[in-house]
């Protein structure tokens, strides 16, 4: 469900510095409870979160996921840290965690303690690393680097990330041995790492 490379290149967004400044809008939500700013964030991200849910095979809960994520964005806007992540990355991590949470609720057992999803998939709110890289440029470079990946590696990464499938399922779907799929994923990780590191220097 991703746009083609050509389209994504012409797609202007915050990471390229041309679209709305989502970080600024989130700050207005955090400090002033600005509903107008939040409406803009909602109009942009809600349809994307819904597409994510549908890709993950969660048709029935797609609307619920959108509402849960956007509620969390509204309530936690003050925890957004622009030097750690771009707004879309931050919202992705919230979406991922809420998806896991929804799936966990279905299979709850009676064990004494439930370890919160947010403890298992923590979202830091402060930049504690020594070497801080601008999150915006990380995402911009990531966008460029993804465009450089060979098609078959891109497809493999997208399926794992975006369709929530296990490696085994993806291998079956693409009709390749599991080892081949893992090889493609490993290569893509290595390539992305090299490209990002080259850009950081």
């Amino acid at each position, binding site marked *: 469900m*991703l746009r083609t490379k050509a389209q994504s290149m012409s*797609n202007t*967004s915050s990471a390229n510095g041309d679209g709305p400044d989502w970080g600024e809008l989130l700050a207005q939500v955090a400090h002033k409870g600005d509903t107008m700013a939040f*409406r803009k964030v*909602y*109009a942009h991200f*809600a*349809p*994307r*979160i*819904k*597409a994510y849910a*549908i890709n993950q095979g969660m048709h029935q809960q*797609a609307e619920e996921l959108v*509402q849960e994520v956007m*509620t969390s964005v509204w*309530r936690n806007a003050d925890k957004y840290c622009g030097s750690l*992540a*771009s707004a*879309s*990355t931050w919202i*992705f991590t919230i*979406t*991922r965690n809420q998806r896991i949470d929804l799936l966990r609720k279905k299979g*709850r057992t009676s*064990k*004494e*303690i439930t*370890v919160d999803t*947010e403890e*298992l*998939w*923590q979202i*830091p*709110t*402060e930049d*504690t*690393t020594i*070497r801080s890289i601008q*999150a915006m440029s*990380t995402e911009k470079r*990531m*966008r460029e680097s*993804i465009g450089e990946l060979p098609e078959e590696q891109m497809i493999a*990464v*997208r399926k*794992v*990330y*975006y369709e*929530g499938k*296990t490696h085994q399922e993806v291998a079956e779907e693409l009709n390749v*041995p*599991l*080892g081949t799929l893992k090889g493609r*994923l*490993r290569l893509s*990780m*290595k390539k992305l*790492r090299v490209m*990002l590191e080259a850009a950081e220097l």
Partner: protein
Amino acid sequence: MSAHHPDDLTLLDYSAGSLGLAQALAVSVHLGYCNQCQSQLRKLNALGGVLLEETTPASVGANDDQIPEQNHSQMEELNKSFEALMARIESEPVEPPKRESTGFHNPLERYLPASLDELNWQQQTREIAKFDLTNVVDMGSARVALQKIKAGAKVPVHTHRGNELTVVLKGGFSDELGVYHAGDYIARDPSHKHSPTALQNEDCVCLTVLDAPMKFTGPLMRWLNPLFAWRA
């Protein structure tokens, strides 16, 4: 700084949110110790952000099977769903904020009944003790425990039915393949016979996660990657 990390594919699955809970626990514990993996995770999360940004948006508010006739009604549905969300947010009580934490921390901290030294350890042998979390925390079918080995003591040679993940919490140990210190993340598949020995200076405490025995697709995978094929 750790020297032993989850491999690329494990971090990829963690970032994508498709890793099992118990494995995610082990990765999460390791992240608290490791700047390198924190930085790699940030990049992987950015990959998720880019994919989210570039996805073809779906219409919100409308039923999935109902194809929006025109952009106008799609906008209307979106606005309606926004108003509904705001109404819901205003009517719901705000949950008190959970414990604030700004960076990565050990996820077990909040759930252990006492500090590592004061836990109600079950003595397995004179030198090895265990604190079983399997029936305490909700981790699916995996077995989760803390293990304590007396300084300098050797654990008898053993194999595992399933894949074993270990994260060192305190002290360190060595085995046939290396030496491990606090924060190190070690993955072993069932083909591994090992006999860990705790380092001399202090007791070693580890988190261990054992998953259920799993299907192998063939000997090739293990041959290709004998150390890290635990999720094959």
